[in-house]
């Protein structure tokens, strides 16, 4: 589903500030995989996500989603394959537009925008159905502007927007990190439900060790732009927070600071 082959990315190449963010990362996700990426600051997790999303174009290597080479495609040209929930709850939706308008954009993701009215009663009914499972009452506030929502509500909306078109891969970029623990837990729960119900393939970056243990069928640890350690299936289920912290302590002191 996702094939990342030996990608490299150096920022500010050729200057004194040159920094290698990705130093030959290869990663293959199968259909339905839910991979959790952990690693310290500067390990390259975000650059990896950005390279898959299209916000960063890799210097070398190849990225393919569902068999299609997207390595050099700009974000908007691969949006029909890849969706994303950002860390910043403000980033994933348009604050000055209403909930239904945001959903209208999301349901047409990657398709060409037509000169047809974006909102119809049929579509509104669909949006209500989409939002109801979150239990936040958003289904009754379709015409409210998104900037009026709380961080948790907004992140739930962003999640609904990211899954509605059944993307081939969904990127979760520390998407609960900016929320309070209770909200984070409910957004995380909604994420797992959405990913499982829709049989999506997911790649989630997190700093939350407990989340890394509890969720997903694969765990990927990055440091200095490389994949340091990978666990899946039985091995991943056997991991504990203590074991992970121990592992990090041995290999990457930076992780403990974050």
């Amino acid at each position, binding site marked *: 589903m996702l094939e990342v082959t030996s990608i490299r990315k150096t920022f500010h190449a050729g200057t004194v500030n040159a920094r290698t963010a990705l130093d030959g990362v290869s990663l293959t996700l199968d259909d339905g995989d839910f991979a959790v990426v952990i690693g310290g600051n500067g390990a390259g997790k975000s650059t990896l996500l950005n390279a898959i*999303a*299209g*916000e960063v174009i890799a210097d070398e290597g190849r990225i393919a989603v569902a068999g299609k080479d997207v390595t050099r495609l*700009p*974000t*908007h*040209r691969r*949006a*029909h394959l890849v*969706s*994303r929930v*950002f860390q910043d709850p*403000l*980033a*994933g*939706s*348009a*604050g*000055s*537009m209403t909930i239904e*308008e945001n959903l*209208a*954009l*999301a349901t*047409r*993701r*990657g*398709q060409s*925008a*037509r*000169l*047809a*009215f*974006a*909102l119809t009663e049929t579509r509104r009914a669909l949006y209500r159905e989409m939002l109801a499972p979150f239990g936040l009452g958003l289904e009754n506030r379709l015409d409210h502007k998104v900037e009026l929502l709380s961080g948790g509500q907004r992140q739930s909306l962003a999640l609904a*927007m990211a899954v509605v078109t059944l993307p081939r891969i969904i990127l979760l970029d520390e998407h609960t990190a900016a929320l309070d623990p209770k909200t984070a837990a409910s957004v995380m729960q909604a994420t797992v439900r959405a990913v499982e119900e829709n049989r999506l393939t997911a790649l989630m970056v997190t700093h939350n060790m407990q989340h890394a243990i509890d969720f997903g069928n694969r765990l990927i640890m990055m440091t200095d732009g490389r994949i340091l350690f990978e666990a899946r299936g039985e091995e991943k289920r056997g991991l504990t927070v203590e074991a992970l912290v121990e592992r990090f302590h041995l290999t990457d002191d930076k992780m403990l600071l974050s």
Partner: protein
Amino acid sequence: MSGFFAVYSNLVPITLLQGVIYGFLALGIMIPFRMLSFPDLTAEGSFPLGGAVAAASIAAGWDPITATMFALFAGCLAGSATALIHLTLRLNTLLCGIIVLTMLFSINIRIMGKPNQAIFAFDNIFDVLLGGSSRDLTMQILLILGMVLVAALLLLLFLKTEAGMAMRAVGANQLMARAQGISIWKQTTLGIALAGGLCAVAGALMTQNQSFADVNMGFGVLINGLAAVIVGETLVGRSTLTRQLLAPIVGAIVYYQAISMALALGLNPSDLRLMTGLFVLAMLALPGVTGRREVMKIRE
């Protein structure tokens, strides 16, 4: 005081006509600022461009409606130029506008072949559309008011389509827009072109109203248009799309009445720009008064 009323009431019809014509300009200034978070100065060049194109075409024998369409098209080109310079070179949008409006000064003289062009001897859009009552100011005002309201209605309908929503998403949140598969290039260019076209139509109508185009006719229109937008938003608000689109038109009408009053009260016309500038500054500085916080979102 009776002197003031006499002077002012004499001015009302003509300033009302100018106000509705400037409604097109204010619409064209609102779109970049509000819909696309693209603070843009191109209006200062696309307005006289519209005037120059209309005057030159009419003088060359084209009918006034075609001439106005030429102006619209030229304005769209000017707007696209600003947008494409910003997108290609990643320059600040204000700088891109200044470069384009500076170049347009020369282009406008080229278009007319001289710094100004009189079209008194030719039929204008009022003659063509109003026939016998083409000199009737009330009819002129109603005609232009109708035109600008139709333009606003078409815009409103467009902004509610999928294509229009994509454009608004670019103004609201570019990162999100990209992630939804929306091309920032396409939508920005389209939106700024549309805005340039509206400003040029205002220039074309003003030229036909005055039967005269001058390369300097754009001087100061940006700040006047911005003031009109701010006045309109204070009166009408911008909580819905309809209000956001009506605000520039209402604002332009009210603003030019206020100017006319100030002049009738004896304000020196040469002090007008200072007053307008101070007014715009005051409105931008007092978000509490206008109830807005993000008056000027600027792209990186």
